[in-house]
């Protein structure tokens, strides 16, 4: 939520339809981006000094030298478990230590032995485990190639764009050289550089040479101070940016690096700005644009029919990513040519990363399958947290529900209109003057009564807790943070202050573990007055948003302990959510799973809860973009993603609202939200017809909750996305590589939302040669590997179940997911052309960690083969008792049997059934077996 309210003055943005671009930097306005991007494509000045090579069991170190300025870098190479390579580059002797990102990796990644295959003057060849997988290091210029057999998978510094601005002492006099003097320096520089080259050819550097090298780089503008609009970045440490390029021969499709309002497949950036990763509170963002948004995950995936790979650039500073199309022959050179070839006209994608500070720390994930990359990345940064089942239900939000009576009335509205929901949300107005952890005394005098009222309906609430803290000596939270000295500091050492919702606000230093521990303790029931077990948390504005800061965020020269904000910026939001989630766990004594929604995020944020795509708008384009935006997040581990249903800004017409509910019902995080200034839009305010359509969409969601829950369990266990691009499941089908108007949920459901106004039909691509798909609404069967025109009405969007799958549903829809806990299952068995199907069922208590700590869960495989459907245990050592039973089995694409028999440990009995010849659906009545037991249903 953004609504520029600055010290009581409304910045009148009336009539501004989209983002005010001038508030945000272009690459040209970000001095390091401009410097890096204008760097020439000459041969890399970096050379490996092979004499310095040291190889321990799993780690190779080697010095690199920049022949222009003689600064030395230290390269570290690791072979990691699970087919990954880690590459770290830092200065050999930095003037000060450079920031290395903590708390994102789940641990020190386990290594595997690295062995030398060969070594000569040109470089070395290392084995990555098998004979086929090798790493070829070329010394002059420095480049790395990862090869598999005769195929080059990936090259590092193939275009020679490795750059490392070494830290240097401040020379204020030099930083202010005018441009005329600058051109003088050019000629002096040329003199020096030719001299230097002569003197030091093949030799180690001298201090003097290094000095000269420094001087010749001093004149670039913006190195020691940078101004954007009225904001000055004092840059006390001077230039510190880094850059590295990667070439991907044979690759035409790259994905990831969210968050951008962009198609799933990334575009080349030659004609405009690079994709930017810098967490920002963007007011009314534009679509199809490389501008930075609220979150940043520096992970890029490449895919072709043979292989999927990933590059994880672990850096939390402002980062830009350039993508260009190339041909493979152009960048292949050096030692690798002895080992591998690529057709010189093969397509290639070049990717270049550059960050403002920190070190180069890159994880190259070699796949080869999409699922391998997910596993590899999950092994580094962890998997999606396993959310409480109820959080997969529907969330009703608005800025703002005004008071307790309003909450009660909206809650009653859902009952009156028989629409299920699990969570009602309170935005910032619920607090006492935007002092988080408090309640407005007039409008929310009895928060516990309100929460109990919801609890009686087995429903829950989320209240917002933002990380900006009102500077007010009467506010306990502020006083404590100040007295504990836990606020972020400004460049002069005082507490950093900025404007946000409460007016002047301080920003807790969440990078400090002490701050996070204290923050977590504030969620204890006796500290957070009015809170109860059914109150959960929403962290907004955690980019952090600073209304009067540069680019609406914190000044880069603000101080977090020993680091500049510049170094940690993209981590701030992750830390806020981490501390909040920890607080929710602690308040329950470690028993209950937390739920925290965040707007800002980074690699690893998936471990702490859900994200949403920020302040979108009630426009068809925003509905459409919600698909690729969440798909991109899913690819980089963040599965629990959603967009504000209805659109945050502006006012949706009924058709758009209905279509958005229908789409949101099939996206992981399903929450309606609206701006303060919009008219009310609870689902029943658009006439009985639209109410019925919305009710139906929400009920479809609730029926599928068992499947959603099972998908999240898998995401939690393996890192596989819940909402997937088609290519993830059909990696060899080139037709799927650019599809982002439809998606898969798990492997079994294909969803094609309707995102055009007045649509009469959509073209759905059903993948899979020799596969079949069943329309989830009509059970009509369609062949795979075709584009199918599906006529649509307003009543629903096309959803298909894959032939060969079994999906458990709970078709008794009640007022909340918790009310459905003990309800029976209906199994939807969609037969493959071979007459087989399989699926799973996962059951636990839905809200505690007992599934993990005490193995209290049921996980069963459901298999249909040879005319028999059976349930077998997938997890012998787990235990859980459920009251749920199997109510009904629908077999899609079946034939009429003469008899149906149920076999259990207690014996056999025959079951009633009916067969609809028109749809080929066999309905088996009431097996009645407990969902956790072994059973078989035989068709004869």
């Amino acid at each position: 939520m953004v609504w520029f309210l600055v010290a009581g003055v409304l910045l009148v943005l009336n009539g501004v339809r989209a983002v005010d671009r001038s508030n945000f930097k272009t690459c040209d306005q970000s001095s390091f981006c401009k410097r890096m991007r204008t760097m020439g494509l000459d041969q890399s000045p970096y050379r490996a000094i092979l004499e310095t090579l040291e190889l321990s069991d799993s780690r190779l170190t080697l010095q690199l030298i920049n022949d222009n300025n003689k600064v030395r870098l230290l390269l570290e190479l690791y072979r990691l478990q699970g087919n990954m390579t880690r590459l770290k580059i830092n200065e050999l002797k930095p003037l000060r230590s450079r920031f290395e990102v903590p708390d994102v990796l789940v641990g020190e990644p386990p290594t595997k032995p690295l062995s030398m295959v060969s070594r000569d003057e040109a470089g070395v060849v290392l084995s990555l485990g098998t004979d086929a997988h090798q790493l070829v290091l070329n010394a002059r210029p420095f480049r790395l190639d990862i090869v598999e057999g005769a195929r080059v998978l990936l090259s590092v510094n193939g275009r020679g764009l490795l750059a490392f601005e070494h830290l240097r002492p401040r020379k204020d006099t030099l930083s202010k050289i005018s441009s005329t003097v600058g051109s003088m320096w050019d000629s002096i520089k040329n003199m020096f550089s030719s001299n230097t080259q002569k003197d030091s050819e093949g030799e180690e550097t001298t201090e003097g040479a290094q000095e000269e090298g420094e001087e010749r780089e001093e004149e670039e503008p913006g190195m020691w101070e940078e101004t954007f609009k009225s904001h000055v970045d004092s840059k006390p440490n001077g230039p510190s940016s880094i850059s590295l390029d990667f070439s991907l021969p044979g690759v035409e499709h790259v994905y990831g690096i969210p968050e951008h309002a962009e198609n799933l497949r990334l575009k080349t950036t030659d004609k405009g700005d690079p994709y930017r990763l810098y967490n920002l509170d963007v007011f009314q963002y534009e679509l199809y644009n490389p501008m930075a948004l609220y979150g940043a995950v520096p992970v890029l995936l490449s895919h072709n029919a043979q292989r999927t790979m990933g590059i994880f650039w672990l850096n939390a500073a402002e980062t830009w990513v350039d993508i260009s199309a190339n041909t493979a022959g152009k960048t292949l050179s050096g030692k690798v040519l002895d080992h591998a070839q690529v057709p010189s006209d093969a397509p290639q994608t070049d990717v270049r990363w550059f960050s403002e500070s920190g070190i180069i720390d890159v994880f190259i994930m070699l796949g080869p399958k999409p699922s391998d990359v997910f596993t590899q990345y999950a092994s580094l940064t962890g998997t999606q947290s396993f959310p409480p089942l109820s959080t997969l239900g529907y969330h009703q939000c608005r800025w703002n529900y005004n008071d307790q009576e309003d909450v009660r009335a909206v809650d009653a509205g859902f009952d009156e209109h028989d629409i299920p929901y699990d969570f009602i949300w309170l935005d910032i107005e619920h607090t006492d003057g935007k002092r988080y952890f408090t309640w407005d005394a007039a409008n929310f005098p009895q928060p516990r009564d309100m929460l109990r009222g919801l609890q009686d309906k087995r429903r829950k609430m989320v209240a917002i807790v933002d990380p900006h803290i009102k500077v007010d000596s009467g506010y306990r939270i502020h006083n404590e943070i100040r007295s504990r000295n836990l606020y972020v500091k400004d460049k002069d050492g005082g507490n950093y202050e900025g404007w946000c919702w409460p007016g002047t606000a301080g920003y807790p230093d969440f990078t400090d573990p002490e701050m996070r521990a204290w923050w977590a303790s504030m969620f204890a029931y006796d500290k957070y007055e009015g809170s109860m077990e059914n109150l959960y948390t929403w962290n907004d504005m955690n980019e952090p948003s600073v209304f009067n800061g540069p680019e609406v965020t914190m000044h880069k020269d603000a101080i977090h302990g020993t680091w500049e904000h510049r170094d940690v910026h993209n981590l701030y939001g992750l830390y806020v959510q981490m501390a909040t989630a920890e607080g929710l766990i602690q308040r329950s004594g470690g028993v209950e799973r937390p739920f925290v929604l965040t707007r800002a995020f980074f690699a690893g944020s998936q471990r702490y809860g859900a994200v949403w795509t920020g302040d979108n708008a009630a426009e068809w384009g925003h509905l459409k973009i919600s698909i690729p935006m969440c798909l991109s997040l899913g690819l980089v581990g963040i599965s629990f993603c959603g967009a504000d249903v209805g659109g945050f800004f502006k006012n949706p017409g009924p058709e758009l609202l209905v279509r958005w509910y229908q789409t949101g019902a099939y996206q992981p995080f399903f929450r309606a939200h609206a701006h303060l200034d919009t008219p009310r839009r609870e689902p029943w305010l658009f006439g009985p017809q639209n109410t019925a359509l919305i009710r139906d969409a929400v009920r479809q969601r609730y029926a599928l909750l068992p499947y959603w829950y099972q998908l999240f369990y898998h995401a939690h266990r393996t890192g596989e996305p819940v909402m997937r691009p088609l290519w993830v499941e059909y990696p060899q089908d080139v037709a799927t590589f650019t599809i982002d108007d439809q998606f898969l949920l798990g492997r079994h459901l294909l969803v094609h939302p309707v995102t055009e106004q007045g649509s009469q039909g959509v073209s759905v691509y059903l993948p899979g040669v020799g596969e079949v798909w069943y329309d989830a609404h009509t059970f009509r069967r369609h062949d795979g590997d075709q584009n199918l025109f599906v006529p649509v009405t307003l009543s629903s969007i096309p959803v298909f179940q894959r032939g060969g799958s079994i999906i458990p549903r709970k078709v008794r829809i009640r007022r909340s997911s918790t009310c459905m806990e003990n309800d029976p299952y209906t199994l939807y068995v969609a037969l493959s052309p071979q007459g087989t199907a399989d699926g799973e069922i996962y059951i636990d208590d839905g809200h505690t960690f007992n599934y993990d700590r005490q193995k209290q869960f049921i996980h069963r495989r459901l298999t249909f083969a040879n005319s028999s459907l059976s349930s077998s245990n997938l997890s012998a050592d787990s235990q859980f008792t459920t009251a749920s039973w199997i109510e009904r089995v629908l077999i899609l694409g079946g034939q009429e049997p003469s008899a149906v028999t149920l076999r259990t440990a207690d014996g056999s009995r025959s079951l009633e059934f009916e067969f609809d010849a028109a749809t080929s659906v066999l309905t088996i009545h009431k097996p009645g077996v407990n969902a956790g037991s072994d059973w078989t249903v035989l068709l004869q």
Partner: protein
Amino acid sequence: MMFRLQVFLIVSLGAALGAAVEVQRPRGVPLEKRHFYDESRPFTCLDGSRTIPFDRVNDDYCDCKDGSDEPGTAACPNGSFHCTNAGFRATFIPSSRINDGVCDCCDTTDEYNSGVSCQNTCRELGQKERETLEKMAEITREGFLLKRQLIEEAKQGLQEKQGKLSELQASRKEHEEKVDALRTVKETAEQPEREAKERHLKAWEAQKAALQLEKEKAKMAEVFLELDGDADGLVSVSELQTHQELDPDGDGALTDTEAQGLLSGADKVDSAGFQNVWSNIKDKYVSESQPAPPPPQEPQDSEVDQDKDSSKDSDKDADQAYPEDDAGDEEDDEEEDDDDDVPEEYDDKAPPAGPPAEHSDDSDGAMPSYDEETQALIDAAQKARDEFDSAEKSLREVDDQIKSLEKEISFDFGPSAEFAYLYSQCYELTTNEYIYRLCPFNRVSQKPKYGGSETNLGSWGSWNGPEGSKYSIMKYDHGTGCWQGPNRSTTVKLTCGKETAVLSTSEPSRCEYLMEFSTPAICQEPPSLETVAPETDPHDEF
């Protein structure tokens, strides 16, 4: 694991009736449908779609499309469950609320197998409801009596107003006649006045023209001397060229030919010939001894300011007093409080000024005062004018009153004009932050409690209730605009009450306000108490 469901429920009532009565029927079936559920026969779905063995009624599996085979379980998506709720009102709930862990029926019968323990609250609820109903009934009764009174008063008020209106309409005629008569008197008096004034003016102008001619001659002589640099009594081309400002084509240079042209083709002219030349050049000529032009005159606006102030004052008065449609649907309406654009002539209470002030650049002095005779004619005419104006003003006032009355009479004050008493009243409600003010049929406003300007939350729009109860809701719209939002508007819901008061205000949606307003005028004729007593509730058992 399947739980066996109890198919039959022993419905035990009677504590209230003093005798225990037991009726057997499937769970969730209302008494009046009991006969459809006969355990000795197969069950036919109530929509007739299917017949099933009776043991499949309430067996927790949905067989009937209409859900009628599962009145007591949650198996059917469209089923409903009947709560007897002895002691309170019987009701139906959606069958999805059976055993969902939430107590819906006050008799607890919906939660028979969910593990949740519900308290039977029917007796309490019944009691409470009876109390509420009684209270409501009392309010309605008393409110309705007040309403009758209001209707009576409105009727009288209307009669009075109509009486007043006819009176005014009658007196309007008199006023009109008077105005006509005085107009004649005025015009008669103005004729000699005008003639006398004209005479006076002409005499003065003749005198002025003679003076002007003298001056002109003197000036020309002076210039001639000034130009005649060599004092030869002739003005030559070169002498003329010392005055470049005389350049006729504006190129900045007065050429020989041009100068000659100015001298009517001659090389030199004497003082007599200069007369023609002078008329050519006098507009441009800058004398060497010419004084600086006077500074531009400051506009005199103090009078205008006064006008504005006075109209502001009248606006303030209007706030207290009578409603004028902001929309301005009656354009010819000229009430004083209408707006700032009151035509000046109406407000001008000062006697008309004498002859128009001379806007002459000359400083030859003012026109001499009128002679006695002329002045007497002017005074007489002025008196006639004053009398005419005063009569015309009275007529206007009468017109205004008529219009205002006609407007009030034509207002929709409800079927029996019961809402008429709200006209020209205002009601306030003070909340934590704001004072809300509802002036029915006029406007709604909001003012911060601790200083700050008033915000218009909407002006009277229309009655906006649903069909059948049109007069239950008032709509006020076109209030002050919202940032990036609509104009503010207010919906006023009327509820029956003895008092006339604003009960509550809220802003359910940004800039859309909701007000609850109690008034006896909305009270309906009370039904007799007995029909609402639970004892005779047709839905109750027996």
